[in-house]
């Protein structure tokens, strides 16, 4: 059986997300209860969480979460990290032994910052330097896999049902202002934890339900810009597209939504001239980043969360609001389970982005 990345594996899924727009931190317990409701949407072959605001004491450092297959791989990776970064803190990620989760790799966490001399030599901006190092380790050091590398955020994932994965990582002991969760229903039996979701690069994390039909067009286009798709999953390529459009091109999240779930030409044709010009421009300029086929995604980023459906809305996604807290999930039941008394519940239209920023902030452009 080939490992994820050597072969493309379509998956069905469940997703859930919670954000407190005021920045008030909550325990990871809530998101576990929410995703657990959708147990039947996953099949025990992958689950995971992204949590934002969980490392306030290290908020200026990149938090690298790494899976190691072996001690030599760990040694080789740590040697690389020491040559490129100042390691402020390192430790095993605390886990809980439980019979539902087995075959765990070595799971380590490092808080790092690029070595000033190395950074200057590279002539790269700090985030680009860090991203390049992550790609280097993931593609060149066998048995080492960085699955999370943002600031003040972290991804926790494993092979198993998502609620078990949450307990395994003791997620209830973390406090953050935003959590997303993913339960996976892959169409094979992968034995590798790296294939679980969320997928993350720097502070961008994506959970996704769907199977995009534009995959290879998107993959071949994004690989031109220095990204290497090692997992052959939709989530990976969507994450890179978002990183490319947001960090490298400087689009806002609203503009990004207009690229990846672009309005139809006939819709654009009906727009007011100024709006039409913008949408025409985005469709032409970033035609290779248009994503077709079913998807519902939650994109976590520094300062907020975006929810987006494909333009035909071929996957379910519901939004519930209660005060400053916003819940988004594949099924309304997953929201009701954690907040029965909602102010509003609604379903975004296909291609209509829901962009939620901390403290009323706008998603920045460069």
């Amino acid at each position: 059986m080939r490992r994820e990345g050597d072969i493309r594996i379509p998956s069905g899924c469940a997703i859930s997300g919670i954000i407190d727009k005021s920045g008030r931190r909550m325990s990871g317990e809530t998101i576990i209860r929410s995703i657990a409701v959708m147990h039947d949407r996953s099949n025990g072959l992958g689950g995971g969480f992204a949590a934002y605001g969980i490392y306030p004491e290290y908020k200026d450092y990149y938090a690298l979460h790494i899976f190691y297959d072996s001690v030599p791989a760990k040694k080789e990776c740590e040697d690389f990290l020491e040559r490129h970064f100042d390691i402020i803190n390192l430790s095993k990620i605390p886990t809980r032994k439980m019979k539902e989760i087995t075959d765990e790799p070595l799971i380590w966490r490092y808080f790092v910052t690029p070595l000033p001399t190395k950074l200057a030599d590279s002539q790269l901006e700090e985030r680009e330097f860090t991203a390049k190092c992550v790609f280097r380790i993931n593609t060149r050091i066998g048995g080492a896999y960085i699955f999370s590398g943002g600031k003040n955020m972290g991804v926790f994932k494993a092979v198993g049902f998502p609620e078990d994965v949450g307990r395994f990582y003791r997620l209830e002991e973390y406090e953050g202002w935003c959590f997303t969760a993913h339960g996976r229903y892959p169409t094979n039996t992968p034995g590798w934890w790296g294939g679980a979701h969320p997928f993350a690069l720097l502070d961008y994390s994506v959970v996704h339900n769907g199977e995009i039909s534009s995959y290879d067009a998107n993959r071949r286009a994004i690989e031109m810009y220095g990204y290497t798709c090692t997992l052959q999953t939709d989530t990976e390529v969507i994450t890179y597209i978002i990183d490319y459009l947001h960090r490298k091109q400087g689009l806002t999240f609203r503009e990004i939504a207009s690229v990846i779930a672009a309005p139809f030409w006939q819709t654009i044709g009906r727009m007011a001239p100024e709006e039409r010009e913008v949408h025409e421009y985005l469709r032409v300029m970033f035609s290779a980043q248009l994503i077709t086929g079913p998807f519902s995604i939650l994109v976590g980023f520094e300062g907020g969360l975006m929810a987006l459906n494909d333009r035909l809305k071929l996957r379910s996604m519901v939004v519930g609001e209660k005060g400053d807290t916003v819940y988004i999930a594949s099924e309304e039941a997953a929201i009701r389970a954690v907040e029965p008394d909602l102010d509003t519940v609604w379903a975004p239209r296909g291609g209509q982005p829901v962009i939620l920023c901390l403290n009323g902030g706008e998603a920045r452009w460069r």
Partner: protein
Amino acid sequence: MAVNFLYPEYEAVRNADRCIVCRACERQCANGAHEYLPDGGRMACDDARCVNCHRCVSLCPTRALKIVRSGNTYKENSNWTGETINELYKQAGSGGVLLSGMGNPKNYPVYFDKILLNASQVTNPSIDPLREPMETRVVLGAKPRSIERDENGKLKNNLPPRLSLSMPVMFSAMSYGSLSYNAHESLARAAEELGILYNTGEGGLHENLYRYGANTIVQVASGRFGVHPQYLNSGAAIEIKMGQGAKPGIGGHLPGTKIVGDISRTRMIPEGSDAISPAPHHDIYSIEDLRQLVYSLKEASGYQKPVIVKIAAVHNVAAIASGIARSGADILAIDGFRGGTGAAPTRMRDHVGIPIELALAGVDTRLRDEGIRDRVSIVVGGSIRSSADLVKAVALGADCVYIGTGALLAMGCHLCRTCYAGKCNWGIATQIPELVKRLNPDIGYMRLVNLLTAWRHEIKEMMGGMGINSIESLKGNRLMLRGVGLNEKELEILGIQHAGE
């Protein structure tokens, strides 16, 4: 000498019971194959004059005529085939170069026929084009590396000039002169109605057709016939023809007999003089010279038109494409070795160049490896025979396709491959007035519109089956393709997996 006699390959068979001696066949045949025999009150046919164009067959009111393989054969020999022997006799008799029309008819692999498309099942839904929008619009041209914003943060439109097409098809270059006026008018009107473009070829643009400028690509080739500032500015794009799939490495020759009246005026050369396009452009001996011509044409058109560079698919096509992508050209057109022509030396047509499927895959991969695929759009031709070929070409990496032979067939061409004789019975590749008027532009244009309307429906069905609702998401989407009966090397070059993988 008896050895000069070549028994006709095809013969016209007349059913005497059905023939009413209306003599329609005689009137229709510009080659003089049919003859009325007053003595017997019946028709006869000289098969040696027949080019197998099916004009008489199509117009015979009693279906008395058909053309069949004559069946005359030399002693069978897999090495020395009848065709090979005949060609040798012709050359021994004439001392001349063999001439052919249309594209390479030889039995080389057609890779499009060894590639299969995907469809959605279970894990994602197919999309019904009758219920949901299904987008076939494409925009061709170069893209800037990054966005720009004004001081208020508003996106600036920094896109260079581009072409917008309702579907990814254009009519490829076929000159006025090689084609009749009525054929050109049909192409121009069809392009306008379909929201696509046609291409003047190297023959200038007849003044009546300037009104279709928004749907016209004006070509500049090595003979520079008909090129002047108004011409360059009359179309939506300018194409530099460096090569042609049917005859890579050589130029063109339109015989003086076709340089009559308006053609002479449009080409800006005297009546009756041969129009000879040199093999190379004599101001382009290398890639840096091409760059200068690209920018000369941009200067001449005020940087308002995208520039297309058309090349023939030859062995090092990927390297050439890489050079062109950095030359300032906005669009790269690649013509495969099956591409058609009015006339080409047989040996060039049949033995030079490579299949478009491999050339396209190689170029697309190379430009992506170099990170410059965005700098040019890719248009491929030679030959795209159906909407399925088109969909496969787009999935391999093309932005758009050119069709030439297919468009001629839509107008009535029966692929007799005798265009160079100038006596096209269907009024397409001829300048003889009584033949030209056989092609009614009202009908020719309508048949072209019908053809591509049908293709558009088929493209949408195939896309919908794959769960793709914008052709942009099909471009370069090679995961939608699988090969059948291809070897590892072929699969590697095409960048696709084998069926069953």
